[in-house]
């Protein structure tokens, strides 16, 4: 049989299946990108406006989060725009492409759809994989065109066509290359969960590599595939070499995926499933079952974020250094004054990171909460729900587990950061600052998990709204300052209320209000779950 037979039909079917997802992502990613481009001129159009932000952007803290600005004497609006958007938008593009890649390969194979198509119809062995490759490539191409044209029309001061198209190309191709790489992992692991986890793990490593090298030796950033985007030097040198690198990297991954797929059995991965023990003393109820099923993932999260925290901590000495520490400043502030200013800079960095870690905690915990619904639709829950276990117990176990995991992730990241940070600092930071941040972020963590519980419990079909709100809230707080969003816009995000901790003290009114809203949502979820039908 021809290995690529019926690829075209599968491609059409893929688009029909994913069209909603693709449109939402494209509108969000490409649309928002262009919108920011339009807004940027108003924000940083003039020399003075640029001056106000440059010091901040050149601080090591910002470099670690957003990547470095090119080394030029004369920064333009366009250069700042490209510099600040590049890493952040690359992250989103990679996430989008990983989601697409797994969703078009392992998921339908797991569901038995691939077997039906390839076994019962004249569909080639490579057709589903090629359809996935084409789907991803087309979507990234569309992103390229929208952002390219949109940014071109925004006509930022200091922009040139070459740079604009390079920017659009860099963002779409970094996503594409990681998407292709995910397709390789999808051949290696025989379930979507493991394939996804390993994809994000490897992506996380490339992120950390670029972060550490950016604040220490920027030549080393070439070692991280994610770091290549920074080397495009958009609107300055317009270096197309990274684009070539991504093409080679992605193309190579694509061929490996095809080669692996050509020789493997359906439903199988290259990592074999070993038999296990017939008995297990640990398994005795819904809680131990959840712990047993989640233990590897949970441990992975905790160790992963502790390392992430430690990597941020390891650059604390660079972060602490004032950008402008000329003798004059030293004289004005005095030794104590300089130390104080440096400490404030660090604390504010910790505040921003506590938000990132809270986001990761919410994702880790939310995935556990989501399992309740995923297991329900996959039928795993059918055998438990006919046992003498109350519905309240059934929902509270994964929800509590999710909350505990989210907090543990937050704590592990913060203390990983503290340990590494204090190892490199001459004047270590007290533990109280880290605890204050953890405590300040707790209601926000609970709020998102509470909203998710409400949806999973009462209206599971709408549960994705939680992630939408989380995404919007995070972007508002992470970027809001840079975009000079109005106050009311910032306040929509629960992060807004606490991101200044530990520099400032916690706003306890807001803390309690958000906590109570979170608890009400949790309660609503439990009540809803007791009232609704379970599906099969």
């Amino acid at each position, binding site marked *: 049989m021809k290995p690529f037979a019926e690829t075209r039909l599968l491609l059409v079917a893929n688009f029909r299946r994913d069209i909603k997802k693709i449109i939402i992502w494209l509108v969000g990613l490409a649309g928002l990108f262009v919108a920011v481009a339009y807004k940027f001129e108003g924000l940083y159009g003039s020399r003075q406006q640029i001056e106000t932000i440059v010091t901040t952007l050149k601080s090591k803290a910002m470099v670690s989060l957003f990547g470095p600005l090119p080394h030029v004497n004369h920064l333009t609006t366009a250069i700042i725009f490209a510099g600040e958007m590049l890493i952040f938008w690359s992250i989103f593009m990679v996430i989008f492409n990983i989601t697409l890649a797994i969703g078009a390969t392992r998921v339908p194979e797991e569901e038995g759809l691939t077997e039906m198509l390839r076994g019962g119809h004249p569909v080639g062995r490579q057709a589903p994989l090629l359809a996935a490759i084409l789907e991803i490539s087309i979507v990234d191409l569309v992103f390229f065109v929208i952002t390219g044209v949109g940014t071109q029309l925004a006509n930022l001061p200091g922009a040139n066509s070459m740079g604009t198209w390079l920017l659009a190309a860099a963002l779409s191709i970094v996503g594409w290359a990681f998407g292709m790489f995910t397709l390789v992992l999808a051949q290696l692991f*025989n*379930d979507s969960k493991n394939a996804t986890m390993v994809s994000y793990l490897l992506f996380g490593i490339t992120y950390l590599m670029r972060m550490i090298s950016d604040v220490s030796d920027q030549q080393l950033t070439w070692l991280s595939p994610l770091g290549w985007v920074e080397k495009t030097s958009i609107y300055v040198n317009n270096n197309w070499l990274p684009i070539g690198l991504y093409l080679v990297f992605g193309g190579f991954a694509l061929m490996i995926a095809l080669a692996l797929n050509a020789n493997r059995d359906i439903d199988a991965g290259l990592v074999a*499933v*070993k*038999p*296990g*023990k*017939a*008995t*297990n003393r640990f*398994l*005795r*109820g*819904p809680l131990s*079952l959840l712990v*047993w*099923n989640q233990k590897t993932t949970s441990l992975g999260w905790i160790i992963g974020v502790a390392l992430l925290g430690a990597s941020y901590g390891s650059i604390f000495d660079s972060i602490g250094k004032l950008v402008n520490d000329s003798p004059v400043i030293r004289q004005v502030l005095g030794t104590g004054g300089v130390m104080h200013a440096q400490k404030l800079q660090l604390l504010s960095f910790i505040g921003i990171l506590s938000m990132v870690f809270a986001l990761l905690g919410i994702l880790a915990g939310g995935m556990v909460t989501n399992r309740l619904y995923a297991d329900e639709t*996959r*039928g*795993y829950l*059918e*055998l*438990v*729900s*006919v*046992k*003498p*276990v*109350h*519905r309240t117990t059934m929902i509270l176990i994964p929800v509590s587990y999710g909350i505990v995991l989210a907090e543990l992730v937050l704590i592990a990241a913060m203390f990983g950061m503290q340990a590494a940070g204090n190892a490199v600092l001459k004047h270590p930071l007290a533990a109280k600052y880290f605890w204050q941040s953890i405590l300040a972020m707790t209601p926000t963590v609970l709020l998102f998990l509470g909203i998710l519980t409400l949806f999973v419990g009462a209206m599971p079909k709408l549960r994705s709204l939680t992630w939408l709100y989380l995404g919007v809230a995070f972007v508002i707080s992470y970027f809001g300052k840079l975009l000079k969003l109005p106050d009311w816009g910032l306040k929509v995000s629960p992060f807004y209320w606490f991101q200044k901790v530990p520099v400032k003290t916690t706003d306890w009114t807001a803390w309690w209000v958000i906590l109570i809203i979170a608890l009400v949502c949790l309660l609503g979820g439990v009540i809803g779950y007791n*009232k609704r*039908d*379970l599906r*099969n």
Partner: protein
Amino acid sequence: MATVPVLKVEHLQKSFGKFQALKDINLDLQPGEVLGFIGPNGAGKSTTIRTILGLIKAFSGTVKVFGKNAWSDAVAIHQQLAYVPGDVYLWPNLTGGQTIDLLLKLSHQKHNARTDELIKEFELDVTKKNRTYSKGNRQKVALIAALSTDVPLYIFDEPTSGLDPLNEQIFQNAVEKLKQAGKSVLLSSHILSEVEKMGDKIAIIRQGTIIETGTLASMQHLTRNQVSVITKQPLTDLDQVTGIHQLTLQNNQLEANFTLDSDATTDVMNYLAQHQIVHLKTTPPTLDNLFLRYYEDNGKSGDTK
């Protein structure tokens, strides 16, 4: 009349959006009985069972298990029943053995001698991970756990759909044992012969309505065997014999195919014997035949019985 029925469903209705899945369901299961619950795919068997199990809420009507409300007393009811769904999905990371033990523990019971016996009979490799099991093997895991649970009520939803005939027999024997031990069983199926073998009573569901219910004997008028026969003498006046339907004659009237009313079996066999049977094959009635017959009876009242 002091005994509480194990299961009592009266005028149960259930809708999903605009689609009315259950229109009028009435079931009655007394202690020690095996109730066969039969109907074609999509008739509402699983929906009915899921309502009985309190997984979904009745729209109207009453569903009582051991005299308790199926929805609000679900936990107390679940303490006293074992259930095997039609499609069994198991946590991929556990082995079959671990799953069986866990399911027993969730019912507050333990791995026992009967569990080992069933594992042996079904020849299940309990050290394999669930993700590597076929549909039939997953079904075995759920069946072993349910059959070795000691409770008054067992509910099986199309339990043999993934089993080969050998394992089907093992299952039927196990149900027989439950019956001897005085347990109650609700068994759904779309295969009439399967239910016929095991059930004391049968309830037939079609498009969300129970259309017939009673003992097998009381339903004899509805069952028709498919007969194909070859004789030495031509069956010239076979079409005159009562109880014969859909007759086709071939090969100079030496070969006949027809359906036969169960209550006319003796007469027809006598007739055939007189014409010297060379070959005779009877197949048990299918659900299709049964519905055909049912609607024939209800559509044209006054038709030959």
